[in-house]
Every structure is written in structure tokens, then in C-alpha cells.
């Protein structure tokens, strides 16, 4: 989980930064889109991500199934969440599945019409146009925002948790990593949220 998760965190950082470029310079964004396109490195990257996703989802489901079994047949009648235990840490699979659903939506909205279209030999849509188009719809924007909030919860636990799982933690860094994890998650999500809100807000003026 940790290793595949780490891959996603890096990917999201890149993706978020790239999207943010679209605010600063739509032309720059287009350039990146063209650069990636259906070139072999982008395709390999996508394939890699797909494999990673498969591993992440599969591991997540297997782990959760194992963990449910480990709890045993009879459940507690009453169980409290002790102080110091994050809500998000106890609901990673639920968030994960929600995020997965979001990813399907997102891939259909963008990737299907861009890289996939190009691979199929069709004319891909223009990235910036597509962004403008999608976020001109209130319901799309709201759905993306909810999706991003859930992703934030997932990441807020995932980032530092990954370091703990890999053994990169100690008494002194225990708290620091948690704070850093929150910061990373927040930065990533803010990058995306900015794009959604920016294009949503500027829509009426277009």
C-alpha cells in the first residue's frame, strides 16, 4: 500500500502542479498537454499508473478483507474512537472506493477524450477547452470539489502513514511527519481546488 501510495502522491503533486499552470498560463498548460499526448513516455507513465492503481486497489481490498476477518464474527456492542485516532485512518477503504468512482468519472471527462482519443487515432480535445467546459457546469464543479475533499482525507492519513509503514519514523519525527503529511495533502488538494474554483468563477465572464 505504502509503495503504490507513494507513487500516487508523486503523481498527484505533478498533476496538481501541471493543472495549476493552466491558471497562470493556459498556453503553457496546452504545451504540457501536447508534450505528453500519446508519446511513448506518457503512455508508459499512464500504464504504470494503471498498474499502480490496480495494485493499490487490490491490496486495499485484500487488506481490508483480512482485517475484517481478523476482527472475528462477533462485533463490539459499543466502541469508541480513542483520542489521537484520526477519523480518516479508520475509513481508508471507504474513501478509496469513493475516490475510485471519482477517478472513473475524471478519466472519462478528460483522459478518454485526450490521450485515449489520440491513441485511437482520433483528434484529442484541447485540454484547456475541456477544463473550461467541464467546470462551467455547477454540478460537475461541486462533484469534483466533494471528490477532492474526500481525497484530502485519504491523503491526510496516507502520506505520513506511508512513512510509518516504510519504517521512516521515530519518536522524534512521529508528530513532525504527521504535520508534514497534512501539509503535503493540503498543498496537493489546494492546487486542484484552485483550478476548479478558478474556472468555475471565471465561466460567466467567458
Amino acid at each position, binding site marked *: 500500500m505504502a509503495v503504490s501510495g507513494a507513487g500516487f502522491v508523486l503523481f498527484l503533486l505533478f498533476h496538481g502542479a501541471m493543472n495549476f499552470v493552466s491558471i497562470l498560463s493556459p498556453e503553457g498548460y496546452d504545451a504540457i498537454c501536447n508534450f505528453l499526448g500519446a508519446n511513448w513516455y506518457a503512455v508508459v507513465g499512464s500504464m504504470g499508473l494503471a498498474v499502480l492503481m490496480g495494485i493499490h486497489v487490490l491490496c486495499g481490498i485484500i487488506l481490508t478483507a483480512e482485517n475484517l476477518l*481478523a476482527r472475528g464474527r462477533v462485533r463490539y456492542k459499543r*466502541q469508541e474512537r*480513542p483520542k489521537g485516532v484520526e477519523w480518516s485512518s479508520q475509513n481508508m477503504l471507504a474513501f478509496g472506493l469513493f475516490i475510485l468512482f471519482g477517478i472513473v468519472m475524471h478519466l472519462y471527462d478528460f483522459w478518454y477524450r485526450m490521450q485515449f482519443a489520440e491513441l485511437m487515432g482520433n483528434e484529442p480535445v484541447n485540454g484547456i477547452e475541456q477544463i473550461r467546459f467541464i467546470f462551467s457546469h455547477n454540478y460537475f464543479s461541486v462533484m469534483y470539489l466533494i471528490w477532492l475533499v474526500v481525497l484530502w482525507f485519504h491523503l491526510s*492519513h496516507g502520506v505520513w502513514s506511508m512513512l510509518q*509503514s*516504510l*519504517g521512516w519514523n521515530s519518536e522524534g519525527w512521529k508528530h513532525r511527519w504527521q504535520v508534514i503529511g497534512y501539509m503535503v495533502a493540503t498543498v496537493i488538494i489546494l492546487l486542484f481546488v484552485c483550478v476548479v474554483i478558478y474556472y468555475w468563477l471565471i465561466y460567466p465572464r467567458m
Partner: protein
Amino acid sequence: MNFTLKIWRQANRTAKGHFVDYQVSDIEPDMSFLEMLDVLNEHLVLKGEDPVFFDHDCREGICGACSLFINGRPHGKGEGTTTCQLYMRRFKDGETIVVEPFRAKAFPVIKDLTVDRSAFDQIIQAGGYVSCHTGGVPDGNAILVPKEDADMAMDAASCIGCGACVAACKNASAMLFVAAKVSQLALLPQGKVEAQRRAQAMVAKMDELGFGNCTNTYACQAVCPKRISVSHIARLNRQFLTGKIVRPWKKED
């Protein structure tokens, strides 16, 4: 003080259990939770009923025998204490108290509130020790241990093997228990020699016995009566992964 107790009653390992309500009255605030249960049991015996079976022994918070999931928490409310050190003054008069056994597949219920925690013994047997035999060891001061390491090892070693970590973990994972031992011995020069082998043997045993996986919720640390830190789990992960990477071809015995 008076209380309503909702206690899990189960006749034996295979029987189906259920909650039974009991009323206890005239409980003094200075009584421990177990002394309150003693009072209940004395009443039950006098009425000719089967007393509630719960594990307990030293009643000073060190043997790790007492367990109980009280009002949704192992060892009840209060940080860094075991059930035997939980005093009734911490409850509100008239409160309803739900008392359940620790629940985990690897901790089957024996009767009522008592569970079988021998899985912990099996994990230790798999490698939770320094493999030295009696005699032929160097002078105690021939092995120098930096004070910080000795103190940290002591913190890990203070685990009493009560199983609260497993009980509180939504995955019923025994990672904190395993980590406490692995970390204690990995911190000391005496134990470092076989640290990676130990980590792998113990983790393999833990998985085999049906404990869940660690997903870093840190619930274990929050309920540990000895306040053992999850940073020991990180050390276990380190030992485990380095072991996997550095010596993947080594067979564990």
C-alpha cells in the same frame, strides 16, 4: 454508587453469547472495577447463579491478566491504566456500563469475559528473545549500551502482553505487541545480532495466527496501558523490510 452493568455472558468457547443486565448497588468510589465485579459475583454465587468469569491476577497493573472492553474501550476510560487500576470514582453514579470481552479472531472467548490470548505466547515463541543459553555470557558491563537506547528499550519492554492493542485496533492487528519486543531487542547490542530474523519470524507468526494488518490508525498506542509508542512499529517495519531486502534468500526456522 449504583450501576447497571451490561455484561457479555458466554458459557464456553462454542456457545452463543449474549448480554445480560445486572444491577449493582452500594459501590464505593474507591473500589476498583474488578472489586466491583467481585461484589457482583459474590451476589451471584449467593443467589446460586454462575459468577462472571474474567481474567485477573496481580491487581496492580503489571501482570497483564485483566482485560475487559469497558464502555467501548479496552481497560475502560483513563489513559495508561489497566482494568484493575480503574477506580469506580471515574464513573458517574447510575451509569450504564457495557462490559465485553476483547474481540479478535486470534483471541477466542473461553467463557464470559475471558479470552484465550495464547497467540501472544506463540508469537514470542517464534523468536521474541535473544537466543542465548544459560552460562557462558560476558560480564554485564562488557556490553555497553548508550543510556538513551537502554531507556528506549525499557519503554518498549514495559509491554505487559494484555492485548489491549489488538482489542482496540479495528483490524485486530498485533503490531504494537510484536513491535514492542522486536524494538526492545533491536535497540540493544545483545539483540541486534538476530534483529531482522526475529522481526520476520514474529511477523510471519502473527499473520499465521490470524491477526490483522497494521493500517496505522494508532488506536493501539492510545489505549496501551503502558503507553508504548507506535514509533516502535516503525522500527519493526524497518527491521522487517531491511530483512526482506538484504537477506530475502534466508530461510527462517
